[in-house]
């Protein structure tokens, strides 16, 4: 009898060795939740790269940056438009607050923006945790500026916004132009330019008529490629 009990005990322990682990949670801490209110989810836990970039750049969106401030964006209902940066503007003094300041802002671009209008409070049941934001959601005036007839980068911006050839690229069209100039992302660029200006000149004896020849092919200069690390500058 004693042997039977002993054998049964060993069997129960042996079965337990296999069965119990499956009944336990898989990861330590799995049942300890962060309080999500007051920006309580630590973005930097995964986004350590973005955190380092924001902390080390010394540029805009860095917590220590105090030079040029966004005078038009209205991030949330408590910060008035044109707040002078800092905690009042971003909702806190930590880099983590910057994450939420951008990625939980409501879109202010009225047409074509990926983020709906209204405050984050209106949409936090629609989009979980964070938006993929457009730069122009906060920097709204830039869209008008870059589409101005006299803007030198009009075609650069508009062509990238309207580019339908790479919609699967995990980057919003509107942001594609912004990154090259405003961030330390490296740029690979191939330029191919016209080789000639071209004129049609006619003289009929009474005067000259000069036209810019738009039908001429204008020739093509050799493609020139350059690859620039964004950290070189």
């Amino acid at each position, binding site marked *: 009898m004693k042997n039977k009990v002993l054998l049964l005990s060993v069997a129960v322990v042996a079965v337990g060795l296999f069965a119990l682990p499956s009944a336990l949670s898989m990861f330590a801490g799995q049942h300890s939740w962060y309080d999500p209110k007051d920006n309580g989810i630590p973005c930097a836990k995964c986004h350590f790269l973005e955190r380092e970039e924001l902390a080390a750049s010394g*540029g805009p969106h860095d917590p220590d940056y105090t030079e040029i401030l966004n005078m038009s964006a209205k991030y949330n209902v408590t910060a008035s438009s044109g707040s002078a940066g800092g905690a009042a503007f971003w909702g806190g003094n930590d880099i983590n607050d910057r994450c939420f300041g951008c990625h939980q802002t409501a879109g202010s671009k009225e047409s074509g923006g990926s983020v709906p209008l209204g405050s984050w409070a209106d949409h936090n049941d629609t989009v979980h945790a964070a938006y993929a934001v457009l730069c122009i959601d906060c920097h709204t005036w830039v869209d008008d500026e870059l589409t101005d007839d006299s*803007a030198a980068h009009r075609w650069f911006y508009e062509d990238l916004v309207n580019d339908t050839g790479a919609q699967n690229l995990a980057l919003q069209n509107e942001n594609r132009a912004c990154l090259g*100039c405003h961030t330390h992302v490296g740029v690979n660029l191939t330029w191919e330019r016209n080789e000639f200006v071209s004129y049609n000149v006619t003289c009929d004896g009474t005067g000259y008529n000069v036209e810019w020849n738009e039908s001429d092919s204008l020739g093509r200069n050799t493609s020139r490629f350059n690859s620039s690390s964004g950290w070189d500058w």
Partner: protein
Amino acid sequence: MSARTILLCFAVIAIGMFMLPQTLSMFSGQHSWYDPKDEGIPCEKCHFLEMAELASGPHSLLYSELYNGSANYSTQGQVGGAAFWGGDTTHHRCHGCHQVGSNVSGEGEWDGRNDTIHAAATIACTDCHPWVDEALDEDVSAHREFYDNLNLTGDGRLLGSNEACIGCHTSSGVNVSWTRSASITFAADKQDGEWQVGGMNATGNNATFISTGG
């Protein structure tokens, strides 16, 4: 740990390898911004060709011959250099031209327009060289029609009279289709012993195309 649990772990990690990157920013450096004040955006990051071209001739850092005596960037008639361009690098030349106020169209200084045009304006050469507009418009100016005609048209990209300026003043190649009259015709008649010459006309067409590399 059962084989099923191990398999489950691998599955979670494998799914994570595909899903997590999509929540990360796409490019390194994407969250590190240049400070735009004090001309902090590096134009040459993209405009490496223009930077190389600016290495010589007027507007280059080394040029010290002719100075713009009329443009009014900061103080009218500055004799070149940092005081004129706002700095000592080629980079400052970019901003010096493309963020200058347009004094031809009367739109004011850059400070008054940087909320209208982002980063850089397409400028007319005559914005900084305004006297040229009057000089080329003189009745006895040999290039008057060339300048005036091109100043009236546009290709949608080059501004104002730039179409004329570029052909002569830059290293761009030039294609010209010349169509000229082949003959002068006039009637000469001697009546009553006096020669009378009628009005002169030009007839026929003589077309020539030239292409000159810059």
